[in-house]
């Protein structure tokens, strides 16, 4: 018999088993079709309420979650950083408890502090979905990346996936590393030395500062946004110098496999980490990622809204 989903929360890919990741990906596959129907809505989460708590700015993850919730017929409430009482000094736990008093079933949460959802989850009866915590994890983004690779390549095991850019601040990369290595893919991380975390190779990945090495033989190049807002500490001399050494453009792609996939979690800085023609070029699956994100988030919401779990009365 196939594996069942018995977790209350989705906090990261670090704790998930291979079977659980497969179940999530298979469920997402079945949800894909709903967005192609004339009526893009199913009643699966009718009567359930989902709170989207975004303590850090987000556009695409938030609208992807919100649309996934609506397509499952859930009721949604949104709390966005600046408009919330967080700015009035309310603690995270108090804010969440208040939301729970409104009988919310699922809390989707983004927070700038790593580990914030892990602190919150045990205090709440509601399920918690981590929509990005600090530099720690962004599980639904990694799942949609895995899903996209699976859709395009038909497998994950044995593939070579390179992450290029700001590895240090990238929760997307961390979640991807947990997921991809569990599924048998080989991961390389590449960026300037200042943006490669010390000891990252302990996670079972190969680290390099040489872009050519990361591009050659790679089946997938997953580019990370240079987070201009985080560059106040100056991790590299200038944006132009970064682009000179690490930009993915037509020239460097001549060294890549002819069927390489170019992925990017967005938003893209055209002309910095990637050139415009590559974003819109034949190798790019960046918009597929967005579409797949919806199916993956529907799958997560559906599985977490299951009935009684072990240990519940």
């Amino acid at each position, binding site marked *: 018999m196939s594996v069942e*989903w018995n977790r209350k929360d989705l906090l990261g890919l670090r704790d998930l088993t291979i079977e659980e990741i497969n179940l999530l990906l298979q469920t997402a596959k*079945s949800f894909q079709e709903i967005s192609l*129907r004339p009526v893009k809505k*199913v009643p*699966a989460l009718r009567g359930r309420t989902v709170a989207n708590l975004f303590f850090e700015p987000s556009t695409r993850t938030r609208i992807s979650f919100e649309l996934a919730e609506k397509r499952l017929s859930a009721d949604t409430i949104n709390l966005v950083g600046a408009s919330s009482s967080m700015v009035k000094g309310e603690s995270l736990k108090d804010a969440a408890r208040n939301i729970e008093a409104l009988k919310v079933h699922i809390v989707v949460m983004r927070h700038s502090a790593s580990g914030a959802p892990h602190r919150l989850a045990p205090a709440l009866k509601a399920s918690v979905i981590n929509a990005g915590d600090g530099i720690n994890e962004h599980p639904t983004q990694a799942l949609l990346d895995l899903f996209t690779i699976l859709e395009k390549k038909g497998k994950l095991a044995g593939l070579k996936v390179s992450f290029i850019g700001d590895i240090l601040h990238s929760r997307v990369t961390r979640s991807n590393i947990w997921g991809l290595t569990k599924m048998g893919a080989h991961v390389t991380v590449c960026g300037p030395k200042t943006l490669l975390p010390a000891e990252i190779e302990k996670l079972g990945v190969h680290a390099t500062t040489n872009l050519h090495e990361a591009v050659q033989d790679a089946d997938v190049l997953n580019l990370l946004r240079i987070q201009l807002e985080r560059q106040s500490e100056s991790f590299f001399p200038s944006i132009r110098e970064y682009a000179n050494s690490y930009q993915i453009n037509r020239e460097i792609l001549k060294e890549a496999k002819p069927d390489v996939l170019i992925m990017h979690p967005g938003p893209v800085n055209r002309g910095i980490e990637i050139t415009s023609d590559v974003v819109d070029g034949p190798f790019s699956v960046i918009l597929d990622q967005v579409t797949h994100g919806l199916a993956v988030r529907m799958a997560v919401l*559906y599985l977490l809204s299951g*009935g009684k*779990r072990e240990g519940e009365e």
Partner: protein
Amino acid sequence: MKSAKSLLDPDGIRRALTRIAHEILERNKGTKDLVLIGIRTGGAHLARRIQSEIKAIEKIEVLLGVVDITLYRDDLSERGPQAKIRETEIPFDITEKKVVLVDDVLYTGRTIRAALDALIDFGRPQSIQLAVLADRGHRELPIKPDYIGKNIPTSQGETVEVRLTEDGHLQDDLVVLPSEEKP
């Protein structure tokens, strides 16, 4: 081990499906606008068989779809971990079509209610008819089949199963399993 009582043998099932195919063609005056949609998983196999019966009679392959009703269940999330979702595949527009919905066993009617809601999300068919291999009674909703393979009087504790070779059974069978002994 409880004993299963067989009510239709492989030939019996084949004849019932042949008759249903004829009845569908008679009622709809041929295959014009006719489509078959099976409810996963048993109904999907039977719909495929009815499709080939119709092909044998009329030399025309009618369109075939499969609907998974899990997301439309009225007891979703009351039953422990979520049921596995499988794909709904209706690769054609059902608007203005005469849809024959196919299921293996008709019982409370709740599955059919869910399937009707799902179908309406795909378009506005001219009509929806219902074909089942076994009708075991005990309806809880006002639903009546148009084509019935076999009527089976049962008590509520009993279980009716259609076992098909498509699901790995050695031969087709329609069985009734007696009530579980109360410990």
